[in-house]
């Protein structure tokens, strides 16, 4: 018997939602045949059979969220499906052997905590897996829980004004007994409507799938990172002129040339000069990791929600190559075809909301990165140049940075440098590798 457990298909993911179960008990499967679809950190992954055999037992159902290491199903390896084999054979074999005393869920990845602290976390409705432990060997202590709860309380109203508890990851709904007011919505199922005289008509939708993942990720980010946002404005006339000049060449090669590749180029040059912006913090070891590679995430709007595909080694790619890759990734994102490979490993994220509108924002950093830049609407504004009011194409950018690592002065110098490069694209080309 082979126990098939939920593997860690992403970078340190700890749970996944079972989207589809593709096999049934008693079914014969070939090695590498798809068994399940699981939704992990923003992508759907197909899990396939590690061995050829018969599905003996399936422990999960569609819509269920399970932790990494959980046994999903059991495959009787090396046998072929025959109807009679689904029953216990009459000859004396030992059914005991299929049940090992050792626990199937002995997953070492679960956070370290004593049973009392786990109980306390449940009472506080906190997911202990999200709490960083400060105890010996990274154990989560009672104090860690209380501080985590305090941080949640402080951050919650600002970001999620509807409910103070709405951004805590809730415990499973089955903890709610019948006859009491449910505090958690089922993870699956259709929307329900409940009307009360004091609240009016409220539609309840399950928080699940990518939306749930985004919610969790955002909470984690604002909980851990002290965010500061700095805003500046850029004059875009020269860059616009340059783009107009190059565009026909791009068109000939069927390349859709937007402003984004230029922003990425400027960003990479600035990141090389300000290495703390292209870094992360290892909270367990209290170390700063300065990254000498430049994988730029591009926050992309999709029908499913915000997804961040990553352009790897952006510093080694030309403007045209970047343009092509952006186009390709955006298409995959919209079609829901991104893989884990496409969305992991980023070192810095750009959120380009300009085409939609908006003047400024406080973008949430994509943890474990330490900064994010948001590009806003490009528009003609009256500005003063050499003591005269003139009309220029202007654009705002908002930079949120991790104040643990980056000071305000550094952040402003960083955006100044980007501004310099974009306002005078000749400089951009002079610096380009």
């Amino acid at each position, binding site marked *: 018997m082979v126990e098939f457990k939920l593997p860690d298909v992403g970078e340190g993911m700890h749970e996944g939602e079972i989207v589809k179960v593709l096999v049934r008990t008693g079914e014969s499967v070939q090695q590498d045949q798809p068994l399940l679809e699981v939704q992990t950190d923003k992508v759907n992954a197909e899990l396939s059979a590690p061995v050829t055999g018969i599905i003996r037992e399936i422990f999960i159902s569609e819509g269920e969220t399970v932790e990494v290491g959980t046994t999903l199903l059991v495959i009787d390896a090396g046998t072929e499906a025959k109807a009679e084999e689904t029953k216990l054979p009459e000859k004396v*074999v030992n059914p005991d*052997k299929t049940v090992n005393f050792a*626990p199937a869920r002995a997953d*070492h990845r679960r956070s370290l905590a004593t049973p009392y602290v786990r109980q306390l976390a449940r009472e506080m409705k906190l997911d202990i897996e999200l709490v960083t432990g400060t105890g*010996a060997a990274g154990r989560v202590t009672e104090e860690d829980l209380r501080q985590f709860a305090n941080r949640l309380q402080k951050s919650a109203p600002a970001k999620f004004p509807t409910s103070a508890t709405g951004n805590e990851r809730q415990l499973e709904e089955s903890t709610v007994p019948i006859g009491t007011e449910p505090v958690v919505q089922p993870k699956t199922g259709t929307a329900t409507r409940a009307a009360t005289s004091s609240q009016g008509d409220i539609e309840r939708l399950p928080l699940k799938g990518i939306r749930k993942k985004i919610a969790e990720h955002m909470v984690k980010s604002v909980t851990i990172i002290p965010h500061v946002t700095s805003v500046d404005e850029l004059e875009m006339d020269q860059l616009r002129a340059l783009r107009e000049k190059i565009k026909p060449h791009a068109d000939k090669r069927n390349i859709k040339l937007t402003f984004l590749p230029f922003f990425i180029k400027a960003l990479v040059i600035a990141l090389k000069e300000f290495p703390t912006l292209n870094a992360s913090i290892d909270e367990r070891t209290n170390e700063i990791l300065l990254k000498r590679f430049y994988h730029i995430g591009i926050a992309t709007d999709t029908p499913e929600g915000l997804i961040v595909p990553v352009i790897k080694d952006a510093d080694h790619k030309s403007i045209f190559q970047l343009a092509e890759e952006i186009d390709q990734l955006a298409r995959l994102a919209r079609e829901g075809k991104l893989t884990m490979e496409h969305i992991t490993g980023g070192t810095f994220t750009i959120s380009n909301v300009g085409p939609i509108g908006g003047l400024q924002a406080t973008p949430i950093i994509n943890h474990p990165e330490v900064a994010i830049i948001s590009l806003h609407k490009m528009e003609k504004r009256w500005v003063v140049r050499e003591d005269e009011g003139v009309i220029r194409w202007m654009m705002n950018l908002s930079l949120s940075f991790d104040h643990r690592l980056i000071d305000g002065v550094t952040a402003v110098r960083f955006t100044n440098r980007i501004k310099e490069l974009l306002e005078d694209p000749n400089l951009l080309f002079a610096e380009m590798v």
Partner: protein
Amino acid sequence: MVVGEVAVETDVVVIGGGPGGYAAAIRLGQLEKSVVLIEKEVLGGVCLNRGCIPSKALIHTAGEYHKLSSLNKLGIQLPTGKATFHMPSWQTWKSSVVDQLNKGVDYLCQANNVTVVKGKATFLSSDRIGVETGNDFETYKFKQAIIATGSRPYIPSFLKTDGEYILDSTDMLALDEVPETLAIIGGGYIGMELGMAFAKLGSQVTIIEATEHILPQTAAHLSQEVLKQAKQLGMTVKIATKVEQAEVANGSVTLVCTSEKNGSESITVHKTLVTIGRVPNTGELGLAQVGVEMDERGYIPVTSTGSTNKSHIYAIGDVTPGPALAHRATKQGIVAAEVIAGLPSSVDSPYVPYVIFTEPQIAGVGMTREEAELQGHKVKAAVFPYRANGRALAMDEGEGFAEVIVDQESHLLLGMHVVGADASNLIGEGVLALELAARVEDVALTMHPHPTLSEVWLEAAEAVLGHAIHVVNKSKVAVSK
């Protein structure tokens, strides 16, 4: 059923009064829920009446009896003449132990306002259950239900037990005499525990196991110690052997067995015990009436709170997939009760200890070395032998060892296993250490009382770190690839 029946209303019904069911009922009572506990036989279930307690009473007795033969070397001179064992007297004593525990459970149920109903329960709908109580039929209306009906021995149809020659474990513990020859089909923990006990009491025991190892649930190096002892007790152990046929004639049972090694052979014995696994008691509950899902083997899948696919119906213990262990059932029962009462409880620990009362005993918690490596750990492990422990030698119990398995990088404990005298009590330290997320240093730096068997953990932990005092430390501690 009577037309116009009146259903008694209760918050919770618990079906099954075993260690899971009665613990759930008592906890519900403590949490001020009205609770009806339905049991068709006697409170305490298999564990108390036909399993853990009677078998441990027999194993203890057999151990004491067997020790008599080695007392001479300790300087204890017995009167001349061989000691004898009188099984009917043992039955009386066993019954007194079981009775005392039964009464205890009964008293605790009363003291916690649990209404105990004797009868056979069947679900009538998603909120009503019927109970056949002798000639009566009572109906209870519930808000929540807990299914705790346990399991029974699996007996293949060609091995029909008759209570006289072909026995299940319940029959075996009710015998009035020790069989001269005994075959045990199934070398799992029940087969080996009872087999060794009867061997000590004088039976000629043959174990017939279908797989390559006795005690297939445990790591081979642990069960090896038991195999050694089984041979010393004069037991015959046939592995990779299947029983094809059983025939009762002339007051004995003839079993036809086949194995690749020996081909076909027959064994004739006075009694045969069949112990090849257990099946859940879910067939006659009327679960279809409520839509509670079962897998194809009859087990009810549950969440970590014990909830089935019907959120107001819970299942605990042997009817759920997983090892059929009383302590697992008790934990699940308490959690289900607390969840029903609105407390944030959960069976969220991967650490389910196991205890096997063979000679020597085996007990463990967490991963074996092989499992840890399969899960991607780089492993450090060390064993400390009983023969290097003063107390073990002073007890004339030098066989066995304690093993500590550690993640090489973090030094976190991954598993603790022990084979040897009193392993069943020693494993408590292991369970607590793993639950508290201890590192191997935590065990090594804790002062253990001397002279006790518990020092085997201290020294095994020190051995992992390369500085055990009472064994010569190998210069390189075993490290996995």
